[in-house]
């Protein structure tokens, strides 16, 4: 494409003409780059978290069975586990014991869980890295949690979970079953919910139906639903952000239209002279095309590179205030890069395509101006 002598001449001329009105075009490039940067950051960020969720949560239990009373989740009696175990296709039913603990000292919520086999025994606790950071606690320290009656229970921190797992474990506290029941005063024979493992995925919906028949008042949550939740939530979130940013895209489009159509007297004279010295309308259209291409190409590339650096080298620093919301405790994680041709293509369609289409009519108007009309004006 660049080998053509005519194209090169026109590109050279376009660049000179762009540089002559440096300020005007620089503003356009800056806004354009910022727009690409914002859209790309949102997409990269949401895409990475979605990808992470879809990989990591594939290992979560096939079915979670919860009991509902008056619209609230309630404790599940162990007898339910025996009923569920008898359904054909259910391999294993594991009771889950977990709950939330609000710590008034740090004003944050923790998720307490009892692992299947807690090797450290009573009186010990394993905490997520986020909790360790908020409490500035380390392995071997003692922390105390309050029971509903106000009695403190003291634990020795046996382990702080790997900081690289913060995306799933930042607010987790693992304790033994005995400690959990004592802390929350939870009766024996009851658990928070049940996790069912099912070997054959095709039987999942049948099993879920049987569960609701045999145990009315329970709610089965399938792993597929868990996975789709994160897929949809981040699609939705990215979509929402882009819809909000749509206002900026629209403003940008108006700005671009204005830049392309509002010609200064000097520009008009330039076109007039070009026509007078024998430039064809198609040459000027080609020049306008190059002008758009130069602006789009540099803004798009710069915006993408900046967005990549922002999301994967600073972990999306600009998004943190929004993501944190009111939480004191929040995960600190380095996202795994997940950028592919698809996201680049989508971004291209969100920015370059509208820009190109919107500048067609103004540049055509410019290109078809009469030389004498222009010169006289």
């Amino acid at each position, binding site marked *: 494409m660049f080998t053509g002598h005519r194209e090169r001449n026109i590109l050279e001329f376009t660049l000179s003409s762009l540089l002559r009105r440096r300020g005007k075009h620089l503003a356009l490039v800056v806004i354009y780059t910022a727009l690409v940067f914002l859209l790309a950051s949102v997409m990269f960020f949401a895409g990475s978290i979605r990808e992470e969720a879809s990989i990591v949560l594939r*290992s979560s239990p096939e079915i979670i069975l919860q009991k509902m009373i008056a619209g609230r989740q309630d404790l599940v009696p162990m007898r339910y586990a025996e009923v569920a175990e008898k359904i054909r296709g259910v391999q294993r039913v594991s009771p*889950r014991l977990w709950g939330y603990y609000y710590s008034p000292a740090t004003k944050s*919520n923790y998720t307490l869980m009892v692992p299947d086999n807690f090797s450290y025994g009573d009186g010990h606790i394993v905490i997520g890295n986020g909790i360790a950071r908020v409490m500035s606690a380390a392995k071997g320290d003692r922390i105390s949690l309050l029971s509903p009656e106000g009695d403190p229970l003291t634990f020795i921190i046996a382990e702080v979970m790997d900081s690289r797992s913060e995306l799933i474990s*930042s607010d987790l506290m693992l304790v033994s079953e005995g400690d959990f029941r004592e802390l929350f005063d939870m009766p024996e024979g009851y658990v928070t919910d049940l996790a069912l493992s099912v070997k054959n995925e095709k039987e999942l919906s049948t099993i879920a139906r049987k569960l609701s028949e045999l145990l009315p008042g329970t709610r089965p949550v399938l792993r597929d639903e868990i996975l789709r939740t994160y897929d949809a939530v981040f699609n939705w979130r990215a979509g929402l952000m882009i819809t909000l940013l749509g206002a900026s895209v629209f403003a940008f489009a108006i700005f671009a239209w204005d830049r392309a159509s509002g010609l200064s007297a000097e520009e008009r004279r330039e076109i007039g002279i070009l026509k007078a010295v024998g430039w064809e309308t198609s040459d000027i259209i080609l020049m306008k095309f190059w002008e758009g291409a130069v602006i789009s190409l540099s803004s798009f590339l710069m915006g993408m590179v900046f967005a990549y650096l922002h999301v*994967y080298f600073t972990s999306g620093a600009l998004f943190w205030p929004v993501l944190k919301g009111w939480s004191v*405790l929040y995960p600190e994680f380095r996202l795994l890069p997940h950028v592919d041709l698809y996201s680049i293509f989508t971004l291209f369609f969100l920015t370059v395509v509208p820009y190109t289409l919107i500048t067609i009519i103004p540049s055509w108007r410019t290109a078809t101006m009469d030389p004498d009309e222009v010169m006289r004006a």
Partner: protein
Amino acid sequence: MRHKKAEVFLIATAVMATLLCLCLLHGRVQENLRADELAKRSRMVEELMLTDLALFMEARYTRHLSLADRHSAFQDHPMSLEHFPAGSLAGPPPHLTGVER
């Protein structure tokens, strides 16, 4: 040099495109380098039977999005509208917006 500006532009564009390619390459390399990290997280999810990412810890229905039910946003009292910042970010999970099973 006759086409000085054109050459500068083409070189600059090539540099930017290369940088973008390097970014994509960096992504691929990281994906491979940190595969064990990901596998570790998957194992943790399996062992602890986790269902959610620890992203929004303000409210219980945003902490465990996939376990949220229709009542969770109104749990405090009937007119208690959803008011956590995270609620506006995370959006409703699809199993709540669809038809009740």
